[in-house]
């Protein structure tokens, strides 16, 4: 059988400050197939964001391995790493913080196209318009400053930026948590459509199981730096095995009309 697209094994990360050490990742292993969505849930401080950032090479793990498409991802550095980064993109929680305060939307989308040589200079405005259209924004937005548009629109721009390099995997770190509920639903729909059309895999980090339920095929529950439970989303939600899993399921608000 072919190896899954992403295989992470035994990831460890400890953050040390002068007095104390916080274990953020403790022997974390998981795998992800192409076109699959893995939901990563857990309470605050459980290490989900660290795992997402380790996967992006924004945080260097102390130990363990990550293989992407059969290649040693943690062994890459410098130019080779920068070139490969196009395959894995990320959407951040706060769409305002994720853009240079001086950037225009067109400029923010131009950067990945230029860096990865996705299009010639003359062709790029058309590609930027295409990207905006794919995430449901008018192409005229390219001239606007990022800080001028609404939070939901800004997160769409962030998704467009992530799509620019035609990645095989997008890591979404609490990508809809800061959005209001109606906008959240439409962003989730957009993500599902993109997965269907392009076969992009997602790692979807959230503390909210209700959101993960609608988008993730599989769920990994994290607590204190460990993955305490994994399984298909409906199974985990219907019958959580770990204490953390049960607590998260219990925390999802239900409407009791009885």
């Amino acid at each position: 059988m072919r190896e899954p697209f992403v295989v992470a094994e035994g990831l460890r990360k400890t953050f040390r400050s002068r007095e104390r050490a916080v274990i953020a990742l403790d022997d974390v292993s998981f795998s992800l197939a192409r076109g699959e969505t893995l939901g990563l849930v857990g309470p605050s401080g459980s290490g989900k964001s660290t795992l997402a950032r380790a996967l992006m090479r924004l945080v260097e793990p102390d130990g363990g391995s990550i293989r992407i498409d059969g290649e040693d991802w943690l062994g890459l550095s410098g130019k080779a790493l920068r070139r490969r980064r196009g395959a894995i993109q990320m959407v951040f929680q706060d769409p305002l913080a994720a853009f240079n305060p001086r950037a225009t939307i067109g400029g923010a989308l131009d950067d990945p196209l230029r860096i990865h040589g996705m299009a010639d200079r003359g062709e790029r405005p058309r590609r930027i318009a295409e990207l905006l259209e794919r995430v449901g924004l008018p192409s005229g937005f390219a001239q606007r400053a990022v800080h001028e548009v609404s939070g939901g629109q800004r997160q769409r721009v962030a998704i467009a930026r992530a799509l620019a390099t035609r990645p095989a995997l997008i890591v979404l770190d609490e990508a809809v948590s800061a959005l209001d509920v109606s906008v959240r639903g439409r962003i989730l729909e957009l993500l599902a459509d993109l997965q269907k059309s392009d076969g992009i895999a997602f790692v979807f980090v959230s503390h909210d199981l209700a959101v993960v339920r609608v988008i993730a095929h599989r769920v990994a529950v994290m607590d204190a730096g460990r993955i305490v439970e994994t399984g298909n989303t409906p199974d985990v939600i219907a019958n959580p095995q770990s204490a953390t899993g049960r607590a998260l399921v219990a925390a999802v608000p239900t409407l009791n009309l009885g």
Partner: protein
Amino acid sequence: MKRFVLRFLRSPEGVAGLILLSCLVAMALLAPVLFPRDPLAIVGRPLTAPFTDASLPLGTDRLGRDVLAGLMHGARASLLVGIFAALVAILVGAVVGTVAGFAGGLIDEALMRVVDAFQIVPGFLLALAFVSVTGPSLPVIVFAIALGAWTGPARLARAEVLSIRERDYVAAARVIGMHPAEIAFKEVLPNALPPVLALVSVIVASAVLIEAALSFLNLGDPNIVTWGSMIAEGRNVLRTAPYLSIVPGFGLVLTVLGVYLFGEGLVEGMAHRRRRQ
């Protein structure tokens, strides 16, 4: 931007500074128009007192040179030196501070020790030593003054960069595979610059004073009139013709005051803008 200008115009310091500086800039720009002759040329009897000759309103010095012409041409030298020295100091400081803060580790340590080394020598002594070794000319003086002034901007830029490099948009730039140098100078530096620019007024003011002091010690460019050299010249006849030192001294005081007030106004305007963000 518009609100920034409004805030600036509403602060009394800013307006006073703007008026003073406008007068000085006007003086500097009009000098070659109103006094097309070399201000070092002899035009009348030596030591003509001010307000006694209509064609020489501020009188003449020991050699019969027009004091008013010297004053206006001197404004050119002072402002040029001040502005260019500040420009060089901010540019060098911002680049060094950004590299140190962004690269971190050994590069940071090395660069900051160089900053320390420059900072422990008083700026004026550094300029004095540099000019007396290389010989006085306007570019050398600008460089000599900048040599002692770039450490402040470097420290401030580094501190800003240290906080900015942890922001998500820097992580986002890494994620799209941007080169670290491009991240440092395109994403980080422009956002670290505003507080550094607040130092401009302090640097310009001290540069004007250092230039005057160098000229006073006969280490200025001998081919141009500066206020410092005029004061030095007048010192020899201080008791019989004190106006020769007082007039350019007044120019100096007003320039430094104007630049300083202007800077205060800028900081005022910027502070309001930051709070709004």
